[in-house]
């Protein structure tokens, strides 16, 4: 177990490092000039040169990379050009918003999709199940930005009950959460259905039923309990993906999370901010994956980590 953990952490660190290096190179190779985005449009070439020097962008790429690595290991991610503040702090300011949205979306997904999946399993292959299936697939098929705009039109324009943008009140969480959750309902509910159908047909269910265990207990504590590993895996993967920024939904709803921060950082070519965002989100996403893996033995004691099948 400790060796397994060590190896996983080592691999994760390597993955994060490679990601950061890729991003470091990509942003610098991409056209665009941070100095031009930073300065007034009237700035002279000499002034732009001074700004580049101020940002350390006048150095050769390899030196910049060296400085970047040195700073990285001392825990310094640089100063954001556009926010005039440590890039890490700027990202951490936004992180709670993204986490809130991700947690809310995953919660709603779970609360709706798991009972739906169970219901679908118990009525497998009926017309009603087919209907529910088609409905969730439809939800999954709508472009998220379009769903967002449509929900905005419905609940902020035609029936003005919810705020249109930002997170100043709790009601502002409703529309973005629904937009994200609608996308994932199909995935999770179908997974639950598949697992439940298998579990309900398994011998232990038959035995339990013959022992007089109620259908309710059969469903929730036998069937669902045994579907826990794939379910948690799926939810964990989705959650990790959400932490990486729900860019489009954040843009549509003016959500002050890392997704909209990234769009802005790209538009101003704010290199330190882009790098810090990638570092923080990638670390979080990998951490969530790791936690999910570590949760397997808790959910299913038969699983022993590090001893791959």
């Amino acid at each position, binding site marked *: 177990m400790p060796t397994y953990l060590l190896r996983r952490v080592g691999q994760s660190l390597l993955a994060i490092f490679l990601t950061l290096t890729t991003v470091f190179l990509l942003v610098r190779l991409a056209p665009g000039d941070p100095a031009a985005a930073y300065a007034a449009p009237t700035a002279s070439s000499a002034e732009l040169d001074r700004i580049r020097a101020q940002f350390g962008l006048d150095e050769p790429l390899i030196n910049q990379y060296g400085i970047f690595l040195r700073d990285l290991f001392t825990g310094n991610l640089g100063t954001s050009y556009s926010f005039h503040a440590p890039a890490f702090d700027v990202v951490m300011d936004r992180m709670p918003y993204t986490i809130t949205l991700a947690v809310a979306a995953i919660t709603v997904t779970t609360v709706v999709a798991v009972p739906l999946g169970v219901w679908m399993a118990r009525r497998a292959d009926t017309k009603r199940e087919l209907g529910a299936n088609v409905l969730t697939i439809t939800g999954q098929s709508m472009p998220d930005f379009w769903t967002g705009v449509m929900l905005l*039109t419905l609940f902020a324009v035609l029936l003005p009950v919810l705020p249109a943008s930002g997170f100043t009140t709790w009601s502002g969480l409703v529309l973005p959460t629904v937009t994200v959750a609608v996308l994932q309902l199909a995935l999770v509910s179908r997974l639950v259905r598949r697992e439940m159908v298998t579990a309900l047909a398994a011998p232990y269910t038959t035995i339990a039923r013959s022992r007089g265990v109620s259908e309710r207990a059969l469903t929730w504590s036998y069937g669902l309990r045994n579907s826990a590993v794939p379910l948690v895996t799926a939810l964990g993967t989705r959650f990790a993906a959400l932490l990486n920024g729900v860019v489009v939904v954040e843009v549509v709803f003016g959500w002050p999370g890392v997704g909209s921060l990234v769009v802005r950082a*790209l538009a101003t070519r704010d290199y330190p901010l882009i790098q810090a965002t990638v570092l923080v989100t990638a670390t979080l996403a990998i951490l969530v994956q790791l936690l999910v893996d570590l949760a397997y033995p808790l959910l299913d004691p038969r699983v022993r980590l590090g001893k791959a099948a």
Partner: protein
Amino acid sequence: MTGTVVGPERPSAVTARDLARATATRQRRGARFKIWAGALCTALVVLPVALAGLLPLPDANAQDLSQRRLPPLSGGHLFGTDQLGRDLLSRILHGGQVSLSVGVLAVLVSGLIGMAAGAAAGFFGGWVDALVSRFLEAQLALPLLMMLLLVVALFGPSITVITCVIAVAQWPEVARLTRSLVLVEREKPYVAAARVLGLRGWTVLARHVVPNVVRPVSLVVLLLIAQAVLLESALSFLGAGPQRPFATWGRIISDGQAYITTSWWLVTLPGLVIALLVVGVNLLGDGLRDRTRRRKGARA
């Protein structure tokens, strides 16, 4: 459950009514419904898009500033006009040509990359597997859309670049599935037999193993087309689409967003078309998958 075959001469207690209510029948019916409904939805979008050039439609870029933002079904415009008086239906259909070809091409490329990498990883194991698997994991941790935006900024928003970018975004899914299927296949006796016959690893993989996994993989690839179309429109929506005045679905929607309270059709209709197509492809893929799964179950 599916083993009851009723011959005409042998009497059986199983009535036609029982058969009609059997799980297998219902599953088949469900799969058939999905396939038909999916094919219908897909065709409803794909056919007009493919035939956009032949249909009696105004030019997608022909403007008439005096006819701007006409509602649907007025002034000879079925879907109305946009903010510059261009026919919205024509724009959606011509934009669909771009979006669809990007989607199909991207999926072909990602299918090829994914199959090759996944099959190699599954079949040879060892360092090939380690390399491919690490790549898969690393990509999972990446903020995908942001990387795509960066790459599009880097190479310019041409159709080729966008296609490649989407292909790169999607290969892990194909690779992961191919790898797991090949892992199962390579332990089967026919592989050992082929090896005994003296065939080399690559030949065994290409001639014997891959043909056995192509079918399930191609189903996933079909589903990926839907994802590719969605991804392309999201990129366009965020501004990383082909140059103007090229219409793409994402751009029509993002342009129309400015008129959301007065001209609902500018956002609603293109979105409906995307949704219809993606629902169609998803249902079709789902139905086909249900059918093969059932067949496999029957064979086993």
